[in-house]
């Protein structure tokens, strides 16, 4: 178990303890993230209950294709992230598979941001930024788009951090600066990545699907 001793860090005496502590730590952080995004979604929910029609009209203005494509991209990135994490945990010397999946995950994350960029440009051209020249008549539609810019922006920041962490592991593994096999950093990074995906899973029906049937 030479690679285990390489990965073992202070202050842990056993590798198993270190892995458990890392996993427990990231889950505590993710729980605080759930509360953070939960508060934002609560704000959305309270405004929506009071302004049902304005929120439906505003939801119709979002681009369903960009939104659905980005959901598919993020779900696929969670697939490659899960394979990378499980391949590392399998201790079977899947070095190339792990690096390939990490690169694919980071690339899909970048693809999401590119699509989001095109979407933001279209939103700006359609005057969907709250303010003087806002496109819709209902005042509460501005509340929807105020939250839209805030929540998707914060999500994009989270995703950018995730891309950085995944790319870091891919580069360190590629240059053989870090043993990837059995490395608990992969699982911890993966858990963060999946949570950013889950946030988007809930944003999708709240942003893109209101008012489609009306």
């Amino acid at each position: 178990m030479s690679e285990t001793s390489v990965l073992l860090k202070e202050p842990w005496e056993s590798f198993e303890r270190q892995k458990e502590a890392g996993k427990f730590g990231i889950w505590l952080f993710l729980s605080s993230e759930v509360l953070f995004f939960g508060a934002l979604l609560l704000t959305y929910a309270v405004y929506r209950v009071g302004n049902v029609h304005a929120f439906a009209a505003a939801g119709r203005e979002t681009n369903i294709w960009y939104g659905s494509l980005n959901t598919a991209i993020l779900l696929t990135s969670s697939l490659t992230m899960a394979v990378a994490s499980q391949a590392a945990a399998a201790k079977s010397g899947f070095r190339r598979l792990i690096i390939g999946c990490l690169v694919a995950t980071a690339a899909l994350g970048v693809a999401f941001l590119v699509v989001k960029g095109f979407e933001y440009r279209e939103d700006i051209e359609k005057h969907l930024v709250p303010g003087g020249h806002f496109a819709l008549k209902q005042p509460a539609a501005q509340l929807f788009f105020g939250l839209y810019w805030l929540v998707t922006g914060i999500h994009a920041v989270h995703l950018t951090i995730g891309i950085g962490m995944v790319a870091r592991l891919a580069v360190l593994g590629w240059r053989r600066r870090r043993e990837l096999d059995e490395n608990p950093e992969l699982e911890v990074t993966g858990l963060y990545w999946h949570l950013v995906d889950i946030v988007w899973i809930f944003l999708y029906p709240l942003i893109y699907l209101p008012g489609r049937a009306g």
Partner: protein
Amino acid sequence: MSDAPDTPRKTAWQLWRRNLVIWAALMALLILTLVVAYLPLGPANTAIGLAVAAAKAALVLMLFMELATSPGLVRLAAIAGLVFVTILFTLTFADVLSRYIG
């Protein structure tokens, strides 16, 4: 090393197969929620949209994030966030919804 050289490749395929099934289920749910959003079901549209999102999140949490096979301490840390978000929503809506009645 008694393992045959082709043993890891076989496990790699097993790894992909397990996760591709989960991914296919997630994609099917995405298409389902997209189609249902265009059916005129009234308030049920929102309820179904959120239910499908919850189903997708459950798949990611249980299988990709491996909560289904995680130790109790980890599950407790994961559930803590959900418990407090539930309290946050319940208490807030106890106020908000009572204002819109009557």
